[in-house]
């Protein structure tokens, strides 16, 4: 109606030039978002700051570019380009914007997958978690355990965490409630292709801070080295963990091998979507299945809950049925949607 040119002929092909002609008006040519006279009130993140610019999956950035900031709880000043640009143009622009982080070695958020109830997450996180577990064995009163976990990323690939449990059990006949075994853990990303695979090694050390006689602790320090791996297989999210538990002293507890395999699916690419999953949990010859869900509570995804039931399937008499959940807070992300 207006243009003598076919619409697409007006735009450059290369993502760099397309970025310069459009995104740069707010994100700046250098990706920092620093402009002499910014035209938006909510300044965009600095794309050159790797810690901030790598933790989100490409799919989130593509979604934000296509549908605008509010789809991820970000400012509505980030406009929707989905009617103007093709999916290829948008993924090209996101790839280009990713390139502003020049430091190698930051694992990309494509492998920042929804947290499983039992399988360790391979991707390092800045999170605070509350993890309740109710366990029930036939003929015994239920026991309850709450863990508060603080996780913090260290550098590009590492992560440290500390977990403080409060337990309430009736193992000794009368109910006792108190501090359980405090755990400290570190992990390190060994390898990721940044698109579909990640491998992480870690170890947890559990200290005997809980009273063993009251059934609140194991009575010995336990070393728990593990490998955690995750992959995206088509639409499926696969996470797995292999862990050994070595008590510092025999015979207080036995050496054990644990393994967890999680297969899940997110219903949409939006950060606030539901994820449904099934986990297979093994401890030596005991096997259990844990159907579960995860649902962010905010559009930004900074608060989320997960819950499921762990049902013994092999060697059932020696295992308890557990109702487990978590409430997580990604404390560096905004909880409230930006205006």
């Amino acid at each position, binding site marked *: 109606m207006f243009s003598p*040119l076919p619409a697409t002929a007006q*735009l450059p092909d290369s993502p760099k030039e397309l970025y310069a002609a459009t995104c740069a008006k707010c994100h700046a040519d250098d990706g920092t978002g620093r402009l002499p006279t910014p035209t938006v009130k909510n300044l965009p993140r600095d794309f050159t700051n790797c810690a901030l610019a790598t933790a989100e999956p490409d799919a989130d950035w593509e979604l934000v570019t296509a549908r605008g900031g509010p789809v991820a709880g970000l400012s509505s000043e980030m406009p929707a380009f989905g009617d103007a640009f093709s999916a290829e143009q948008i993924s090209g622009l996101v790839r280009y914007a990713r390139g502003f982080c020049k430091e190698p070695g930051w694992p990309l958020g494509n492998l920042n997958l929804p947290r499983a109830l039992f399988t360790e997450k391979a991707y390092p996180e800045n999170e605070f978690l509350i993890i309740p577990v109710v366990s029930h064995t036939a003929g015994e009163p239920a026991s309850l355990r709450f863990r508060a976990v603080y996780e913090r990323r260290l550098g590009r690939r590492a992560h440290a965490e500390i977990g403080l449990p409060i337990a309430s059990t009736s193992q000794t006949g009368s109910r006792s409630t108190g501090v359980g075994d405090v755990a400290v853990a570190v992990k390190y990303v060994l390898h990721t292709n940044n698109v579909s695979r990640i491998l992480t090694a870690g170890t947890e050390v559990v200290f005997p801070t809980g009273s063993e006689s009251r059934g609140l602790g194991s009575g010995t320090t336990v070393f728990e080295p593990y490998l955690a791996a995750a992959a995206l297989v088509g639409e499926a999210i696969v996470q797995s963990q292999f862990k050994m538990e070595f008590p510092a002293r025999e015979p207080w507890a036995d050496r054990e091998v644990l393994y967890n395999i999680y297969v899940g699916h997110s219903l949409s690419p939006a950060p606030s979507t539901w994820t449904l999953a099934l986990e297979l949990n093994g401890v030596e010859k005991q096997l259990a299945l844990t159907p579960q869900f995860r649902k962010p509570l905010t559009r930004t995804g900074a608060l989320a809950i997960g819950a499921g039931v762990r049902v013994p399937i092999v060697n059932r008499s020696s295992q308890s049925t557990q109702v487990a959940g978590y409430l997580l807070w990604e404390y560096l992300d905004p909880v409230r949607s930006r205006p």
Partner: protein
Amino acid sequence: MGISRSGSLSALIAAGAAVLAVTVASPEGIVQRAGGSGTIRGRVTSTAPVVAGSLKVTADEKICGPSVPDEAIVLDREGGVAHAVIAVKGLAWGEMAPVRLTNKGCRFIPHVSVAPPGITLEVTSEDATLHTTHAYAPDGRSLFNVALPLVGLTIRQRVANAPGAIRIVCDTHPWMKGFVYVSTDRATASGSDGRFVLADVPAGSYDLTVWHERLKGPAQRVSVGTGQTVEVNFVMAAGT
């Protein structure tokens, strides 16, 4: 005062009347809405001094020029107020074509448009730069924000169901402002001379309201008889 035959208008404006209303043959006689229809027309004026202001362009000067007119209050030489919205309470809309909103010369054209709830807005650009058309509901919530990086691209967006003045801005050209006035009642915007016409109004009595982004004017009651043209004039004062 306040009642006049259509045509005696300029005299009344000169007299500085605050509120003008209506003349019809027998005001009480036509409250029935049987069959026929008439026309409501009139003029929106203000005694505010004419200030042909302009806004400084702070980006894309090559495309937008050094400045654009400030359209917050647009008065012609006789005090006619453009971009005022006159709504007829209780009068339904007829069939409405999508409302078109064009980014041109780094302005929104029209500066003010009217729309029934839920209608489709066709947003387009004639400027070879990146515009964003960002709509805010009266309560300040963002409704949509679409990027227009191409000349001639048209993007369709449904406007809000809630009535009120939707504020339109461009996040790359901060001086750009416009409004889409969503009204459940049939409405029209005044032209550059302050005049407006609402044709095919079923005979009956109606309350007319006026909205303007900066100025305020009182509601008025009119009666329209079959085949009649009723003249209604609004005199606007600075709003608070």
